Structures are given as structure tokens and as C-alpha cells.
């Protein structure tokens, strides 16, 4: 069942960057791509507990700050060792300057 919540304002995230968003004991990562679209994934790397929001966004890739594991943040696909498990992604929509994500 859908559960849309407000994650942040559009201006909170720079282009080609990511921020951390905590809600209900869970951690998410909110991305703004170079072409100004928004995406959301789980906030922790699937390899080890590291905040992806401290990592580097390059095109459609988020690189984990701890071991440089790479995911496609649009699809959640793990791009190779040391990450082998895909990242969970969440639907995102922008409403009146707010970034909403569906965590349901």
C-alpha cells in the first residue's frame, strides 16, 4: 500500500548529489540527477553499513564512501564487487517544490 511522505524540499539537494533522509527508524538516500530528476533508495549500502549520502553521485551512479561500491540509483542495480546485492528503490514525485517518496 502506498505511503507517500515528504522527504525534503527540491532545493535541499544539489544537482548530481544526494542527501540523507531519516524517517520512522529507517534511513533513505534522496538523489537529484544531472538532468534534474529525483530518485530515492535505501540509505545504507547493501555491502556494509555505510551511509550512501556520504558518497559520490556521478551521472546515474552512487558510489559508496566506504568501499567504493557502485549502484545505479535509478534502478538500484549493484554494479559489481564489493557490492553484490541490489539497492531498494522507492517511487518519487515532486509536488509544489517538495520531494515526496512512497515508502509503503
Amino acid at each position: 500500500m502506498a505511503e507517500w511522505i515528504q522527504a525534503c524540499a527540491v532545493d535541499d539537494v544539489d544537482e548530481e548529489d544526494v542527501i540523507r533522509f531519516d524517517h520512522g527508524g529507517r534511513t533513505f538516500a534522496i538523489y537529484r540527477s544531472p538532468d534534474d530528476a529525483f530518485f530515492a533508495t535505501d540509505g545504507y549500502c547493501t555491502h556494509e553499513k555505510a551511509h550512501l549520502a556520504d558518497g559520490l553521485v556521478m551521472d546515474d551512479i552512487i558510489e559508496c564512501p566506504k568501499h567504493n561500491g557502485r549502484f545505479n540509483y535509478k534502478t538500484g542495480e549493484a554494479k559489481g564487487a564489493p557490492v553484490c546485492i541490489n539497492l531498494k528503490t522507492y517511487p518519487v514525485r515532486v509536488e509544489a517544490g517538495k520531494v515526496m517518496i512512497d515508502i509503503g
Partner: protein
Amino acid sequence: MTMAKKRDYSLVGESTRRAIETGLASAEWYHTDVARKTMKELMQRSDGPAIRDTIIWIVAILGSAAGIVWFWGSWWIVPFLFVYGVLYGSSSDSRWHECGHGTAFRTRWMNDVVYHIASFMLMRNPVQWRWSHARHHTDTIIVGRDAEIAVMRPPDLIKAALAFTGILDFRYSLPTLVRQAFGTLSDDEKSYIPEMEQHKAVTAARWHMAVYVATIAVAIALKSWIPLVLIGLPRLYGTWHMVLTGLLQHIGLADNVTDHRLNTRTVYMNPISRFIYWNMNYHVEHHMFPMVPYHALPKLHELIKHDLPVANPSMWHAYREVWPVLLRQLKYEDYYLKRELPPTAKPYRGEFHDLDITAAAAE
């Protein structure tokens, strides 16, 4: 003073169990505060510096190899062997390292190509070592967890000295590749290579062995040592610089702590060594922020050095500093060098150390 327990460096033994139980394994580590905007700038990737350095590297390798072939049989070969050996047996380590992190080039395939070539030069299984290095970054110098502790305690000084010749590493690396090529991974290797990746490690070992067998076949066919002097043997005669620089990364410093300032060392080095080592002399900085490419490490160093122990001004200084510590560790293996922080730094994060070790520290 209670007696500290002996260290068990296997990755599936008593120290492993204790590291997991106490929370030392996969712990949160200390990081110097750096503004996100600044860190983003430092983390930015570009192909330019690594392409430039790799072209120089390849040209120097091919040039010195040509010199070896040309001057074969005369004493003029010596300087070419010296250069080729260091490029093959030592500079490959930093290329392996940086490209393994994926930070040297922006373009992924370029990192992968250089990573695999360098892994071969080092006689390192590229799959196994990618995982062992990930573990090294998760659990840096955590006994029972870190697969890349170069000098264990109490230190074996003869072994450390022999490391400069490459004999021990060669003796370890080649049989390891042979074993892996026959499909056998050790328990330690299995502890850090995920099951789904283990078959890839076997395949990689087989490729490496195939090239070595082909090299031996060519040497026999040509009735010449040249193929082996160019492929394989540089791992013996060219390793010394890798050991000279690499040993300083962690030797004599604390273990079982979660603050890289306590267990890792930054040493200023000459420009040639820095080229060979790709700036890994800024090792505290690298461990704290592994996302920062090698060419940005000097800038990162300037930015955070207020929070780090003062860097050793030279390799000579660092070895002079660590030598008495090693001698003392022969009798008291808990002894270590605790380097002083500048007044501008945040205090050491040493809670695990205080908890775990009854050690004496030299300041």
C-alpha cells in the same frame, strides 16, 4: 597489570570471535569533519591525471624492457633491470590499489583494465584481493579481521627484512595462485570472499597461471631467461620499493582501534617515490576518505592536517622512529607507538583500545 591475550591473526579464530563480540568488527570509525561541498570537490573523478601517469608508466616499462633485451649479456643491463623491476614489482602495487578502489580514472573500464594488469604483475588474484582490501578498509589493523596486516606482533624482523627481496612474497603468492587455480580457497579467503564470488577467484587464478605457463614455454622454446626476467621474476627483484613505502603504512602503530590516526601513518616522500606510490604516502587521509583520488590527496592532507599527527618528514625519519618500537615489541607485543596530536586536533578515539589492551604506549 594483567596479561594481554596473544594475538591470533587467522581470520576464523579467537581474535576474530573477540573482535566481533566487542564490536570492533565493522565498527564506526573516526572521521575528521570536512564540509560536504568541499568533500564533493575532493572526490571528483577525472581521467586526465591517471591517463597521463599511465602513459608515462607504460612508456617507462616498455623502454626499460627494451633496454633489458638490448643489453642482455652486458653490465649495461643493470640500470634497466633496476627501473623495470621497480615499475613492475613496486609501482604496480599502487596502480592495483587505486584502480581497485575505482578512484584513479573516472571511466570504469580504465580502472578495471589497469587493475587486472597490475594484479597480474603482483601475482595477486584480482578477485581475492579486491575483497581482502575491502576488509582491510572495514577493519583496518583489527586482529582476526584484517587480511592485510603486513607485520604482525611480535614482529618477525628477519621476515620483514627478507620482504625487501620479494622472496617471501613470491613464495607465498605463487603457491597461492597455484592452489586457487586447482579450485581450493583457504578458510581465511572464504571468510572474506562471498560465496557467489569464489568461483571468479578460481577462474582468475587459472588465467594468471596460464600466462605464467606460456611464459615458461616461450623461455624454453627460445632457450632464454629473458621472458622470465620480464614476466614473473620482477616480483622478486623489483619489490623493494613497494615494501619500503608500504611497510610504513601501519607498522609499529596501534591495533584494535577505530581511529585511523592511531593505526596509520602519513609520511612525506620524494616526488619519484610519490609517482611510484601514487601518493599513498598520505595514508591516514586515504583510509579516512577512500573516495578521494590519489591526485587529490595532497589537497586533502592540507585541509585536515590540523586534526592529524604531524606527518613524518621522510621515510628515514619514520623508520628511525619505528625501529625502537619494533625492538620493544619483541618482548612486549602490546607496546606500540602513539603519535602525538597537534593542539588543534580532536582527541583520539580510543575506547576500544582502552577496553581491549593493557598495553604501554610510546608518545
